[in-house]
């Protein structure tokens, strides 16, 4: 399974964009995803990969999970998926 492509699909669906318009450098902000959209994306990603993402919406910077860009989100998920298996 290509984790990156799947994550981009989920983020694109949330942002109502074509997956081709979501780049690795994109930030959630630049894609128009607000805090509600973020928790919804995290839920969808957890469901898709059956993982638990350590994320607290009260203080997104105070967790091991880096959401500053699409690429940082993908690497965080790759790490969690690897830990799981």
């Amino acid at each position, binding site marked *: 399974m290509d984790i990156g492509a799947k994550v981009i699909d989920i983020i694109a669906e949330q942002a*109502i964009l074509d997956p081709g318009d979501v780049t690795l450098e994109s930030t959630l902000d630049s894609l128009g995803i607000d805090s*509600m959209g973020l*928790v*919804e994306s*995290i*839920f969808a990603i*957890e*469901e898709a990969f059956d993982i638990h993402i350590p994320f607290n919406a009260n203080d997104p910077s105070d967790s091991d999970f880096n959401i500053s860009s699409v690429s940082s989100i993908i690497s965080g998920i790759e790490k969690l998926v690897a830990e799981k298996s």
Partner: protein
Amino acid sequence: MNRVAITGSGTINSLGHSVKETLANMAEGLCGIRPLYFKDVDRLDIKIGGQVKDFDPTTVFNRQQLALYDRVTQFTLIAAKEAIKQSGIIFSGDLAAKSGVVLGTAGGGVSTWDDNYRAVYEEGKNRVHPFVVPKLMNNAAASHVSMEYNLKGPSFTVSTACASSNHAMAQAFQMVRSGLSDVMVTGGSESMLCFGGVKAWEGLRVMSKDACRPFSANRNGMVQGEGAAIFVFENFDKAKKRGAEILAEVVGYAMSSDASDIVMPSKQGAARAITGALHDARLSPEDVQYINAHGTGTAANDKTECAAVADVFGRHADNLMLSSTKSMHGHLIGGTGAVELLACIMAVKDGIVAPTIGYEEADPECALDVVPNQARETKVDVALSNAFAFGGLNAVLAVRSV
């Protein structure tokens, strides 16, 4: 004290997806109670209800809205759209700052509770969608109406079981009458027709398996319904000045508490609410021609309600009409008073009194003119709408023709 006009109405319920359709079907004495269809209905003893038919939310709302809108919010927004459009009001500036929305619901997002309990308990899932709480909370529908129409004034949700809508509309009425707001959006909604919602009611053993027959000697219980009705209450003089169509005038209300039993109704509590509404509206009993009854079709409610009406109206009780439209749309619980206000508006505006359908056998304990089975064309100046809730909380509204 300001006079209060109703300048908009909207609804979706088992009788129709609009006020026009609903009232036409009420006037025809049509029954909206049918076999229920939803997951696990085969495990229920009660398999009928006034379910909204031919409703596909995906044709009305987009994916993001559906993630946030429980069925009860969907119904509310559909009814609010019709009501506010009819009023012709666009909320901006000072008007928006002072206008609010007060709605009634008993259960809020019941199917959201139901779906997610099923997911975690039955399917063993350990994760729920992030919007479960904002979707199921009782005030979700009111909040979405406020956001959709820019209503920034006093807004909240009232939850008093089967009297929720009447309590809510009484609040909105008071706000416009006192001058706190020139316009208030009000009414109520309910959507409990899912496995858990009906199963809970089954527990009480007050539900009918075949039909809702209020006041009929062979009645055997209530039947649930679902839907919403929303109204625009407006300062009468200002509505007139801007040339709005006034559907009816709200002239008074009263609330009372039985303070006696959590489920059994009280004649005294009901009578005090009816009398209070007459006093508040400065009406004498003889002024009233029609009462939309609470009329649930249970043994206890119908005889208690008839006794209360007989007490309050004395000899005039034999001259007035008392019908229960729950026989057609079912009991919308927290939304029921709102849908039933439509029948009162039809009576005072169009001179058509909706019938109590399913009436088969006279009951000496309900010996009033219950407008059996067929609507009646007659002039009605004043109509009352009764709501008597579990928990003994009562609210009665009075409307007048204009």
